[in-house]
C-alpha cells in the first residue's frame, strides 16, 4: 500500500534538497567567477604598482612577506636573476609566461600574473584555493539555511497533505456506512475538485446498485408471491386427493394435482427465463440465427396447445431472415408470443406468425383474433405478472415481460397494436446493425 502522504513528503523534500544544492552550486560558480575577475584585476594592479616602484629603485629590498599572506611576489631582473621573493623557499617558476597563468606547485594551484618591465619581470601569484574558499563560503551561506529549513518544511508539508487528504477520510467513512440496505448517494460533503469526480462516479454506481437491488428485491418478492397461487392449487388438490370419497373423485383430484404441479413448474421455468434475460445478467454470445427457423421451433413447442384449442396456427415466412441473436432466448421469446396468442384467442380462432425482412429491419409479427389489449393497458402489459382479465387458461403473467427482456437484449423493439381483424398484433423489430448487442 502506498501512502500519498509519504510519497509527497519524500518527493517534495528531495526536490527542495536538490534545489538547495543546485542553488549552492550555482552560487559557488558565480562567486568563483566574480572573485576570479576581481583578484585577477588586483594581481595586475599590484604588478603595475610594483613596476613603478621597482623602476624607481631597481634594487629595492622589499621586506620578506609574512608566511600567511595571500600573495607571493617575485621579481626578476633583465638577466633572469631573481632579485626578490616575498616568501623564500617557495620558488615559483623560473620562466615566466607573460600575463595570467595557472600553475600547479607543491600540491596547490596558483594564479600567476607576470608583467614585463624595463629591467625584468614582476610575478605575482595567489593560491586559487583562496578564491575557492570565498566561493565555498558564499555557497554555504545559501545552502545551509535552506537545508536547516528542511525539517520545518517536512512538518509543514505533512500538515498540508494531511489537511488536503481529509476529505478522502470523510468519504471513506461515508462509504463505510453504506451497505445493501442503505445505498444512498454520498452528498453534502464539501469536496476538492480532484475528488469530486470520484464521488460523482461512486454516486452514480450507488444509484445503479440501488436500482438493481430494488429490481432484484421486487422480483424475488413478486416471484414468492406469484408462486403462492400454483402452490396453493397443489396443496388444495393434494388434500382433495386425501379426502376423496370415491374413485372418480380421486381420479379427478389426481388429474387436477398433475395440472397444478405442471403450472408451478411452468411458472418456475418462466421465472428462470426472465431472470436469465434480465439486462446485464444475461450471458451467452450472440450468433447469426435464422429467424424463421426459430419461429418454426417455437411453433413446434406450442403446436399441442393450439390443436387442443382448435386454433389455426400458421407461419408466413418469405425468405431466410438472419439476425444476430441467442437462439434459445429467441425461441423462448417467440414461444411466449405464440403461447399468449393461442391462450387468449377464443377456441377456433386464428394465430398468424409473419417473418419478413425490410431494408432496415428484420420483423417478426404475431397476429391473433383474440380480444386484444386495450390501448390504456398496453404499457402495463409488459410488467411482470400482469394478467389480462379474460384469460381462458391460467398463465404465468410473465409472457410479455420475457418477450420484452429478450427483445431488449437483442436491441429489438416490441409494439402492441390492434390487428386489422380485431385481436392483438405484436411486432418485434430487429434493427439491422443494432441487433449485435
Amino acid at each position: 500500500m502506498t501512502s500519498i502522504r509519504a510519497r509527497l513528503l519524500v518527493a517534495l523534500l528531495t526536490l527542495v534538497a536538490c534545489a538547495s544544492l543546485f542553488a549552492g552550486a550555482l552560487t559557488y560558480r558565480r562567486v568563483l567567477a566574480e572573485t576570479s575577475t576581481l583578484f585577477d584585476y588586483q594581481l595586475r594592479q599590484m604588478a603595475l604598482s610594483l613596476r613603478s616602484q621597482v623602476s624607481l629603485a631597481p634594487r629595492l629590498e622589499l621586506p620578506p612577506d609574512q608566511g600567511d599572506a595571500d600573495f607571493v611576489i617575485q621579481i626578476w631582473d633583465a638577466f633572469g636573476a631573481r632579485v626578490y621573493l616575498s616568501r623564500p623557499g617557495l620558488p615559483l617558476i623560473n620562466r615566466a609566461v607573460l600575463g595570467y597563468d595557472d600553475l600547479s606547485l607543491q600540491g596547490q594551484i596558483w594564479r600567476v600574473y607576470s608583467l614585463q618591465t624595463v629591467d625584468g619581470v614582476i610575478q605575482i601569484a595567489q593560491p586559487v584555493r583562496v578564491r575557492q574558499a570565498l566561493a565555498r563560503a558564499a555557497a554555504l551561506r545559501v545552502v545551509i539555511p535552506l537545508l536547516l529549513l528542511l525539517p520545518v518544511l517536512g512538518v509543514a508539508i505533512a500538515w498540508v497533505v494531511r489537511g488536503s487528504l481529509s476529505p478522502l477520510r470523510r468519504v471513506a467513512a461515508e462509504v463505510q456506512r453504506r451497505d445493501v440496505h442503505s445505498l444512498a448517494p454520498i452528498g453534502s460533503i464539501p469536496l476538492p475538485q480532484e475528488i469530486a469526480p470520484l464521488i460523482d462516479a461512486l454516486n452514480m454506481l450507488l444509484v445503479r446498485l440501488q436500482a438493481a437491488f430494488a429490481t432484484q428485491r421486487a422480483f424475488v418478492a413478486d416471484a414468492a408471491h406469484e408462486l403462492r397461487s400454483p402452490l396453493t392449487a397443489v396443496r388444495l388438490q393434494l388434500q382433495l386427493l386425501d379426502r376423496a370419497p370415491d374413485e372418480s373423485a380421486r381420479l379427478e383430484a389426481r388429474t387436477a394435482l398433475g395440472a397444478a404441479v405442471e403450472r408451478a413448474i411452468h411458472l418456475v421455468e418462466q421465472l428462470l427465463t426472465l431472470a436469465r434475460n434480465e439486462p446485464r445478467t444475461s450471458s451467452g454470445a450472440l450468433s447469426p440465427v435464422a429467424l424463421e427457423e426459430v419461429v418454426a421451433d417455437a411453433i413446434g413447442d406450442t403446436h399441442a396447445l393450439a390443436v387442443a384449442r382448435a386454433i389455426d396456427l400458421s407461419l408466413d415466412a418469405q425468405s431466410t431472415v438472419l439476425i444476430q441473436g441467442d437462439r434459445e432466448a429467441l425461441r423462448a421469446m417467440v414461444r411466449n408470443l405464440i403461447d399468449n396468442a393461442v391462450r387468449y384467442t377464443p377456441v377456433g380462432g386464428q394465430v398468424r406468425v409473419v417473418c419478413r425482412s425490410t431494408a432496415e429491419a428484420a420483423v417478426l409479427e404475431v397476429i391473433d383474433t383474440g380480444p386484444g389489449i386495450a390501448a390504456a393497458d398496453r404499457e402495463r402489459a409488459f410488467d411482470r405478472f400482469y394478467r389480462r382479465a379474460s384469460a381462458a387458461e391460467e398463465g404465468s403473467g410473465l409472457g410479455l415481460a420475457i418477450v420484452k427482456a429478450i427483445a431488449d437484449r437483442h436491441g429489438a423493439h416490441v409494439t402492441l397494436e390492434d390487428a386489422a381483424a380485431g385481436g392483438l398484433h405484436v411486432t418485434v423489430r430487429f434493427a439491422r446493425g443494432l441487433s449485435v448487442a
Partner: protein
Amino acid sequence: MRVLLVEDDRMIAQGLQTALRQDGYTVDWMGDGNSAAAALHSSHFDLVLLDLGLPERDGLEVLRELRRRGDATPVLILTARDEVQDRIDGLDSGADDYIVKPFDLDEVSARMRSVLRRANGRGDPCIRAGGICLNPATHAVEQQGVPVQLSAHEYAVLEALLQRPGAILSRAQLEDRLYGWDTQVESNAVEVYIHSLRRKLGSEAIRTLRGVGYFIPKE
C-alpha cells in the same frame, strides 16, 4: 348453506368448489370483482370467501361496498397478500377472518364454521334446538342423544332451519341454500326433504306455516 367463492385463479377456484361441495355447501363462483359485487347485490349468501387480488375490482373494494350497504354477510378473506398491514386492512375493512395462501383446506373449513357460528350468535360448536343437536364439523345429527342418519340434502335443509330457530324460511329461500345458479331445481325437492326429515326426527320437529314456509320452534 350457500357460499360465494370469489377467486380469479381457475385452478384454486375449482379445487375449493369441489372441497366445499364435499363439505355440503352450495357454492357459487365469481372470477372477478365486478361480478362478485353484482352477485352480492342480487343474492343472499351465508358466507363469502373473498380473494383480494381480483381483476376489474379489488376484493377490498368489493368488501367495503358490501359493508357500506349495511350487509353483514360473513366474509372470509383468502389471499396471497401476507403482510401484517394487508391483514389489518382486510379485517378493518369488515372481513370476519383472514387466511393466507397457501392454506390448509381443513383450516379453511374450521374457520368457515367458526365465522358462521359467530355470525349466528352462537358459541357452541353444535347447533341445538328442539332437542336436535347438529355438529357442522362432523355433520353428525342427534335427537335426544340418539344419532340420526341424514342425506346431504336433508342435512342442508335442517342446518338452514336450525341456524335461526323460530325464524321462518320459505321454500324459495331453502332452494336458494340448496342450489347454486348452475343447478336445475326440481320443483318439489324441498317438500320431499322436509317430509323425510319429519319421518326421521318426528312430525313435530319441523313446523309448517301454510303459505309462508317452514321453521323449527325455539325451545
